[in-house]
């Protein structure tokens, strides 16, 4: 990875480096076809072709029609458009919405905004392993429920939700189902032709594509109210001139993922297993998330009596995260870990190792030794409470 000689990167759930094929394709497009794809001249049509190719590549990854894809600036925008757009569109039918307490801020804050606008939100708690039992969702659905939003893979713990079962429960009751797939798209097989999902958010930079571009899958006939106005692009659902080079990059990242997901998962499973094996004898170590299963690119652990922020500094030059990357500088303990039943102190000691395609066995050995050393050092520093 470029620039990696100074550090060992293990924060792939926060973002991933550009794949070299992606960078190459983006450079080519920037030099030859970076025009307005909505223009009716040759240059515009060339750019439109690039966008169509990317939609086809993403469509293949998700097993959906290219026409069902809306381009956005990333998962945050996709989540906003899906949740606000669907809730407002169906507000005349009812104002009850359902999501989970362990969602990403890009979903939680949208629901908070809707609460202020008169919607009622049910915040479902997971089991201690992070899973949402489908019965818990079914018992919360009401006649006036309009939308359910559940994330596919949790960004902090790697828990994978049973999207098929949750979606089926929604479909039976004619409730729209949105899935935040930011951590799943390009990392695990996602077959949206088979899954009962109406809206699916993703972003390119989580699977080795560029930052600043994402997509929202909108199943045929799903009504949405646009958030922005000012042009006719993308069936008026998301106006604005498309960033052709970024979209081309997303397309190539999707094409690479389509062919490499199986190998990636096999490799990550082995690396995560070794990482856990290398630290699991540390006294008081807790795995935050599923003991078995879950996405193999994420391992979240905590130990008693160690501060997460100090742990992070003591482990440099290893780059890992405390809490989610978006709020790592915050002093607040992770709301996701609190929802799993962890105390503030336990949540504060949590470290998320997230592995990616470039992670090597040597990186894992370095992480094991670094984590063990940091815990030892901080425990030696900590005072006992007086008897």
């Amino acid at each position: 990875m470029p620039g990696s000689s100074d550090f060992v990167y293990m924060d792939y759930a926060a973002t991933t480096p550009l794949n070299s094929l992606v960078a190459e394709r983006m450079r080519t497009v920037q030099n030859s076809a970076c025009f307005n794809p909505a223009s009716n001249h040759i240059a515009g049509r060339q750019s439109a072709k690039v966008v169509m190719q990317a939609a086809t590549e993403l469509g293949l990854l998700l097993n959906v029609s290219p026409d069902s894809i809306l381009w956005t600036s990333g998962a945050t925008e996709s989540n906003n458009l899906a949740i606000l757009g669907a809730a407002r569109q169906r507000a005349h039918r009812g104002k009850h919405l359902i999501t989970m307490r362990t969602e990403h801020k890009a979903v939680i804050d949208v629901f908070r905004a809707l609460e202020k606008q008169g919607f009622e939100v049910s915040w479902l708690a997971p089991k201690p392993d992070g899973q949402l039992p489908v019965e818990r969702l079914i018992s919360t659905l009401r006649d006036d429920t309009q939308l359910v939003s559940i994330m596919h893979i949790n960004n902090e713990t790697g828990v994978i939700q049973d999207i098929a079962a949750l979606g089926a429960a929604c479909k039976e009751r004619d409730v729209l189902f949105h899935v935040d797939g930011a951590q799943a798209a390009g990392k695990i097989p996602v077959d949206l032709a088979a899954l009962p999902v109406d809206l699916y958010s993703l972003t390119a930079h989580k699977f080795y594509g560029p930052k600043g571009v994402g997509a929202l899958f909108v199943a045929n006939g799903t009504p949405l109210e646009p958030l922005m106005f000012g042009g006719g692009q993308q069936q008026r659902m998301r106006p604005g001139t498309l960033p052709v080079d970024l979209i081309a990059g997303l397309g190539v990242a999707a094409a690479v993922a389509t062919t490499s997901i199986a190998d990636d998962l096999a490799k990550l499973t082995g690396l995560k297993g070794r990482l856990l094996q290398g630290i699991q004898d540390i006294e008081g170590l807790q795995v935050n998330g599923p003991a078995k299963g879950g996405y193999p690119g994420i391992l979240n652990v905590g130990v008693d009596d160690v501060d997460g922020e100090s742990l992070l500094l003591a482990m440099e030059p290893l780059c890992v995260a405390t809490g989610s990357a978006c709020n790592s500088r915050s002093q607040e303990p992770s709301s996701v870990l609190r929802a799993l039943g962890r105390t503030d102190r336990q949540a504060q000691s949590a470290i998320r190792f997230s592995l990616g395609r470039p992670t090597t066995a040597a990186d894992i050995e370095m992480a094991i030794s670094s984590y063990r050393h940091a815990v030892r050092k901080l425990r030696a520093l900590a005072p006992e409470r007086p008897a």
Partner: protein
Amino acid sequence: MNIDPYNAVVRAYFDCPEHMGDIGGGAVAFFEDQGMRIRLSAKVVDGKIKKLGFRAWGCPHVIAAAEAFCRQFEGRSVAELEEFKTSQIMGDLAVPVEKTGRILVLEDTVRSLRAAIQDRITNQAQD
């Protein structure tokens, strides 16, 4: 925007806390608040602080602040502990304002240490 949340002093003190540990047989003070824990211990001879040690549970700024205190006050008189305020350490370590409460735990621990030293002096005089 601060790209690095820790300045060079914090990094140096956190990496090599020379005063980490306990001073056996000395005065001891412990304080816990804001989720932080600090213990200070001191060896005092003829009204002078000969040795200081600390243990701390907390963020890097709290650990560095405890080390900074020990470096500043070793060799000084017990009376000078009266003057201790965290404001200078906050500046030296560029502690973010939202962590003020955490660093004030050090001020409380120093106050307890001063009281513990005075108690020992009083007890020794009575013996």
